[in-house]
């Protein structure tokens, strides 16, 4: 990533952080339903297929849950990619953002920071122009830490 694209994405990240407030821990089941609801809203009920064409880079253990750096990309010509949608499964609001690349982006790639309320799977869901959905996910641990 060059400085220019970084500056662009930090602006995005700053606005994203504002919409993901920390709320008290709720039951795992409620979270699961919330995530499915949020996902269905985007996919119209379709289940994304896990694919190696979608790449998600995120830390195993977050250094700071408030700003977790992630990179998401789709290894297909940018013309075929309508959007990359990112979800944090156990966030109070699991939908994080959608990124719509254009041909001027050159590739379907985004690097930004997201806020995680607690340990969760992060999903990158690629929406292709032919209506299919592909995904990659990774567990990111959010911890107070302490051993050395």
């Amino acid at each position: 990533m060059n400085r220019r694209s970084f500056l662009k994405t930090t602006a995005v990240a700053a606005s994203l952080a504002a919409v993901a407030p920390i709320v008290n821990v709720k039951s795992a089941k409620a979270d699961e339903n919330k995530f499915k609801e949020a996902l269905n809203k985007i996919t119209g009920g379709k289940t994304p297929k896990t694919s190696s064409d979608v790449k998600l880079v995120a830390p195993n253990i977050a250094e700071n849950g408030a700003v977790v750096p992630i990179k998401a990309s789709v290894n297909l010509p940018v013309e075929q990619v309508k959007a990359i949608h990112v979800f944090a499964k156990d966030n109070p609001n699991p939908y994080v953002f959608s990124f719509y690349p254009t041909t001027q982006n050159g590739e379907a790639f985004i690097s930004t920071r997201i806020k995680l309320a607690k340990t969760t799977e992060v999903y990158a869901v690629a929406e292709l122009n032919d209506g299919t959905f592909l995904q990659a996910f990774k567990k990111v641990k959010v911890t107070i830490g302490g051993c050395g």
Partner: protein
Amino acid sequence: MNLTRRDFLELAAVLGLTATGGDALAKLNKLKPEEVFEFKPVGNVTLLHICDLHAHLKPLYFREPSTLLSHPSLVGEPGFLCGEAYLDYYGIKRGSIRQYFDTAVDFVELAHKYGKMGGVAYMATIVKNIIAERGRDRVLFMDSGDTWQGTAVALFTKAKAIVDVQNALGIDVMVGHWEFTYGKDRVMELIDNHLKAEFISQNIFDEMWEEPVFKPYTIREVGGVKIGVIGNSYPYTPIANPREFIQGWTFGIRMENLQQIVDELRNDKKVDLVVLLSHDGFALDIALAKNIKGIDILFSGHTHDPAPKPIFVGNTMIVIAGSHGKYVGRLDLEVKNRKIVRYNYKLIPVASNFIKPDPEVEKLVNHYYKPYEKKLSQVIGKTETLLYKRDTFYSTFDRVISEAIREETDAEIVFTPGYRWGTTVLPGEDITVDNVYEMTAITYPDVYRFEMKGSQLKMILEDIADNVFNENPLYQQGGDMSRLLGMEYEIKITAPMGKRIRNIRVNGKPFDPNRYYVLAAWGGNLHRAGRNPKKFRPVYDIVIDYIKREKVVKPPMKSNVKVIDIPCGCPKKGGICP
């Protein structure tokens, strides 16, 4: 010392060099040198390795863990091996010096027989002998970090003493972890102006611009072989240690970046061998090697494991060289057409009683100790029981530290961190000021008292447990559980995250998740999560005064933690107890 000729031969064989120490030599001066040179040199390349010296310039006792537990799918294999299971796994002879250095079995008895371990002047003799034998241009000396912190002399000189010793030892390349707790300005000052070794790391970036802070790799020609050495500093430094020391830097494992560098070294730089010098932890590195293609040798560190034999993950050889200056790892290689065709590895124990110290390095050590000698050698008390550090849940020296903090702060529960560095004091021996620093010499030594709701305390304990017992080593931080005084609990290691800890009792009473408890802690981030924090004196001052008052300490050997699903401390594969 009660060494027989047979013991000595064994010892000399393990050492792989001519032992020239005091009375052992007098008894055995008829021995021919060739009988004791057991190491068979191979090829043109010698890679020397140390890790986790923790600033121990002088010899010490250091007992390996009596309990080393993790998920049952991980225990009983290198990374989680101790005691009898370790001896069986590596086929080590009972009563041997190898047993003494590598395990807690019969430790006190063997300590009286073989004496103290490590000491940089003794290490220097081993290194210089190897260099004399092989030639400097055939030797590369690597240091996996956690070198600058762990003793008073390191703390008082802000690591300068240790850097000078590294220079005298001839360290060529290093990575870091506790180094960063001196703060990034001091780290940069030492690296730029004093350290002769190259400090490399592919996994430390400037947070703002995502630019690497250090050179990610170095290329060295050793014995005519072009070697690319990549560095991995401890990926979880900002989580395990206070963030303010490295504000603005971001770490992580960064597998994608690592794979790119490996490919670059192989394809563009045309190196013969790719080496990863790491402070990731042994279990994490084993998992890492399964995900990265093209690393020939991985020199690990952080988790302090002594591993006398290399392990292989695909084509990657992984070694780790213990801790506290107890060992030097020697790997000889014959390389043909960018392939290792033959190798020989030995984890050489630095058995200080049987090695003549190098005068130059000994002088340097004495020089750095001199201003503090009087303070540090002061006897403050005695111990009746063995004082040790290494155990997954409980240790006697930590018990003494926690008792001291309880007296000072009047807290209900005391947290002491599950670091893996420290020292050992034999039963009946004096405790010195230096010993206390060996357990507590950190740059953020303040003790805090604060209040925390039971439910939050439980959650934090679960969180720490997951860092230690997660089934996937990539999510482990490579330390032990925090030690708790005033609290007893049971743990089911195989339970899911958040559900491992049960039957908690606080000072004999059932645990109440809705009540606020008064806690005291040091060496971590815990107080930041509590309410009404109050700062106390540095932990070492509290402990020194406590031992002076007590005169004799006798902490119990019994742990306050009961493990439900693994009935012993050193299980074999699958969690089965010997």
